């Protein structure tokens, strides 16, 4: 009897101990879940300080010590929790042993005499319960089936929903903050319309082939701004299945230049050892409307210059002002034609001494054609009349050779010509070529082009840096060197600067601070440049993979492979995107 009491008391004490220990462990566990030892406020502050003080050994030592202390504290707590578990297991063993010993003489006695079990009655009840349970389960199941089918019908019925969805999403496109969500709606529309993947019937298109209001008049859009006001661009397409593909046409001659759009014309160039040509395609049908050859030009070299295979003879993108279109080739030949394919003028501005090949694209501001004439011996900026080719002004430079293209930026409320080279980014008055400011910040082989947004000029080049310059004063706002482009150019909004590298990293810098806001390791090289359209950033990898990001957050919205290598930057117009691949030209438009 005494022993029974002892077992009982031990069991009670053990049970109470276990209960208290369990509560303590629960609290400790909760604390551990809440705490992230390496993300304390102090640690974060010290780390931030360290980023701005690179060589502060004392600070680094302090961080190391705090790091070690935090880890120790974490592991000590974890160790305590583990010890607690072992203690609980031990206590549970004691409790069970004591309870067993306490109850060892109290056996369950039969109750046959008092209440004999009526097995048949039990079975009858069991049948009833089981029958009811099965019936209830069946009714619930059927109810679920019916309610689900009704819900499905309500959800799937009208195709108008899709239109509403599109309309809604289109409206929401006005707000850049909701742009990424709109893309998802676009994807919905694209996906839901897979049944209509056939190429649009050209006869149907004939009736609706208006002149397009939104143009893309130079490399990376109007003013080479790396942005477009186009809307409703498809976010998925398939070249093989012709999903969202309006047309795809072959290009007579090879070239790395990008398409340019105005009215219903697309302009690109192509060249080989035999000929250098300017092509005009119809934006609605993809039909080659006309070709203008760069031949018979006085001063044009008889033999083609030696160029790198990655650059070719037609790397420069053409420029248009809606009335004339001008093209330049690696030979230094410049030609200009009207919208009907009549060659207006042609001249050779001198064979560029360029070891990779001439690559700078043209730009038009009104009737002025801007050429950033990159040359090892005589670099200059030329302003020619688009009508007849006469020189309006020129600006010689002692800068080293580069492969960058000029842009027109609005700085201090006025249009300014911004060029980037080695070693400077400089702004000029486009009407007379006078220098507004110059910041020497670049080095190496500058192939990337600048960007501008909110009155700030951004430039970046591999082996140099990424820089933000106040467009009004030429003052450097920030510098960064986290990720730098080789061939691809920057694109910018007032909040973010987008950068794609040739080693597969893409990132968004904070336009105000230069801090990397978001980065993606896409493990594929980029020569094509990002373009900001409709709240999204479109970017093609060399292999032809498309990445679409949110322009507000730089979250990757979607990506897919087109199957054709793409080095050029796409051009955008109303609901359409024209892409040049190494094989063809195609137009993406929602079916």
């Amino acid at each position, binding site marked *: 009897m005494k022993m029974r009491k002892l077992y009982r008391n031990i069991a009670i004490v053990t049970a109470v101990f276990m209960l208290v220990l369990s509560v303590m462990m629960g609290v400790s566990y909760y604390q551990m879940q809440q705490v992230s030892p390496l993300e304390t406020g102090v640690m974060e502050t010290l780390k931030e300080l360290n980023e701005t003080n690179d060589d502060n050994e004392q600070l*680094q030592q302090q961080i190391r010590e705090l790091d070690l202390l935090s880890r120790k504290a974490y592991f000590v707590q974890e160790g305590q929790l583990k010890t607690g578990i072992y203690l609980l297991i031990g206590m549970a063993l004691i409790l069970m042993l004591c309870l067993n010993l306490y109850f060892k003489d109290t056996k369950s006695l*039969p109750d046959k005499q008092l209440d004999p*079990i009526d097995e*048949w009655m*039990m079975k009858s009840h*069991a049948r009833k319960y089981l029958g009811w349970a099965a019936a209830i389960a069946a009714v619930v199941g059927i109810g679920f089936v019916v309610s689900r089918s009704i819900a499905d019908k309500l959800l799937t019925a009208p195709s108008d929903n899709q239109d509403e969805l599109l309309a809604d999403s289109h409206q*929401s496109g006005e707000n850049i903050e909701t742009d990424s969500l709109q893309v998802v709606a676009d994807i919905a529309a694209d996906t839901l319309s897979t049944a209509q993947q056939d190429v649009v019937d050209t006869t149907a298109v004939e009736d609706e082939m208006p002149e397009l209001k939104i143009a893309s008049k130079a490399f990376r859009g109007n003013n080479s701004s790396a942005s477009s006001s186009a809307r409703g661009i498809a976010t998925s397409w398939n070249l093989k299945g012709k999903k969202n593909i309006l047309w795809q046409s072959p290009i007579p001659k090879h070239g790395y230049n990008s398409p340019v759009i105005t009215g219903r014309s697309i302009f690109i160039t192509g060249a080989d050892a035999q000929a250098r040509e300017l092509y005009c395609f119809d934006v609605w049908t993809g039909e080659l409307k006309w070709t203008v050859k760069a031949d018979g030009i006085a001063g044009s070299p008889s033999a083609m210059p030696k160029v790198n295979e990655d650059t070719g003879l037609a790397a420069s993108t053409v420029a248009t002002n809606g009335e004339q279109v001008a093209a330049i080739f690696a030979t230094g030949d410049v030609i200009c034609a009207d919208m009907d394919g009549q060659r207006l003028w042609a001249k050779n501005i001198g064979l560029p001494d360029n070891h990779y090949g001439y690559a700078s694209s043209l730009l038009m501001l009104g009737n002025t054609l801007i050429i950033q004439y990159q040359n090892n011996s005589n670099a200059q900026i030329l302003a020619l009349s688009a009508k007849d080719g006469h020189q309006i002004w020129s600006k010689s430079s002692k800068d080293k050779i580069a492969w960058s293209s000029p842009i027109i930026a609005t700085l201090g409320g006025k249009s300014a010509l911004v060029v980037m080279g080695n070693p400077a980014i400089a702004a000029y008055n486009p009407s007379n070529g006078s220098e507004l400011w110059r910041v020497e910040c670049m080095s190496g082989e500058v192939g990337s082009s600048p960007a501008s947004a909110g009155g700030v000029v951004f430039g970046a080049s591999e082996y140099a840096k990424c820089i933000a310059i106040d467009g009004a004063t030429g003052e450097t706002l920030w510098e960064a060197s986290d990720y730098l482009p080789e061939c691809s150019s920057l694109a910018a909004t007032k909040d973010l600067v987008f950068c794609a590298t040739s080693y597969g990293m893409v990132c968004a810098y904070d336009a105000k601070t230069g801090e990397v806001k978001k980065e993606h390791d896409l493990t594929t090289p980029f020569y094509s440049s990002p373009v900001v359209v409709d709240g999204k950033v479109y970017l093609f990898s060399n292999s032809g993979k498309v990445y679409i990001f949110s322009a507000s957050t730089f979250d990757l919205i979607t990506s*897919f492979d087109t199957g054709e290598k793409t080095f050029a930057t796409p051009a955008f117009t109303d609901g359409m995107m024209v892409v040049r691949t190494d094989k063809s030209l195609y137009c993406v438009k929602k079916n």
Partner: protein
Amino acid sequence: MRKLLFLFTGFVTSLSAMAVARFPKPDFTSGYEYPDIVHGAPNELLWNVLDIVLLIAMMALVVWAAYKKRSRAVIYSVSFVSVAYFGFFRSGCVCSVGSIQNVVMAVVNPDYHLPWYVLLLFLLPILFALLFGRVFCAGVCPLGALQELVNIKHFRLARSVSATLSIIPWVYLAFTILYAATRSQFLICRLDPFIGIFRLGGDIGMISFGIVLLVMSIFIGRPFCQFLCPYGALLSVFSALSWKKLEITDKGCINCALCGKSCPVDAIRAPQYSKTKENRMKGVHRIIFFAILLPVLTLAGALLIGSQSNALSLAHKDVYLYEQLLQQQAHPNMEESLEVETFHALGGDIDELKAKVDDIRRDYRIYACLAGALIGFVIGFKLLKLSLKRSRQTYEISLARCTVCGKCFNYCPQNKSTQHKQPLISYL
């Protein structure tokens, strides 16, 4: 013996304490170069062989203890070893209960390689059940053994209620097969209530569920084995057909009724007599009715569950992702889930995903029908079985329910003559 057991348990428990906790490396560089991590080749084969050898040895020991010695002490000791070795030391994985899933996957997918020891873990308890009943459940299964060790009293549910609840393991089994066959998930592993306890960590929800079950086990005999275990359901079929029938005593039952209430899983059936008188023809008609109802219920179950195959298929990660993508498209203002974000980040193609989802849903239609048919059949069969009258003159063990824990042996006065001096552990 007890000392040895405690020492062994303590030893294997301390082994797990030696595991090193993982923690991210310092992100603050100091120039120190981390050496390459070299992983030693795992010597898993030895442990697998030991698992199988121990499984066979322990089941054989239970057979010997139950059939020859009628000794609970041995069976109880086996429970200790099982919890210590299969539970805490081997972390409760792979167990025979979970092996159902591997076997199902191997059956439906010829490309899936079924490890030999997993096959043996699945087959050996079934083989022993066919020969001697559910000796695996006795104390060899760490899940059952853990509940057995903590059991003090066994308050029983009304037999009619427990008979109804005994359908649950079959429903669990049906869904386990469905999800394994469609490669959606291993339901048993996911819902194992004791794995977190054996591993001293894991999903807090499942650990809590395990603790609740263990607390219940103090007062109710093996609640998991009785009302949840899908492998137990499977073994009950083979056990009912076992070659050797377990008896409480080999000296003949004297109907003293002492064993009647000793069984924690209510597997001892009293001599059949009924206070309720029923017209014989009424009973016959009921049997005919339920015999006809059996295929009807099977078909109805197949249709009902089959009709829900689309909803059930959401358990598959690809279908779930696809549905999330559609949801996202339908509600563009909805916050993007991590799955959707990852899908986009990895450049997923929704058309490809749709094709994959279509295949998965086709599989679901087939296996959901089969799962429904199994559930319908079990309900129908149970109703039919509950309509049969059996004459019984003495107390008998229901072989399908009996988990061979051996508690009844000590209650039987007929066995007392051979158990003059009982070890302390016999009382547990």
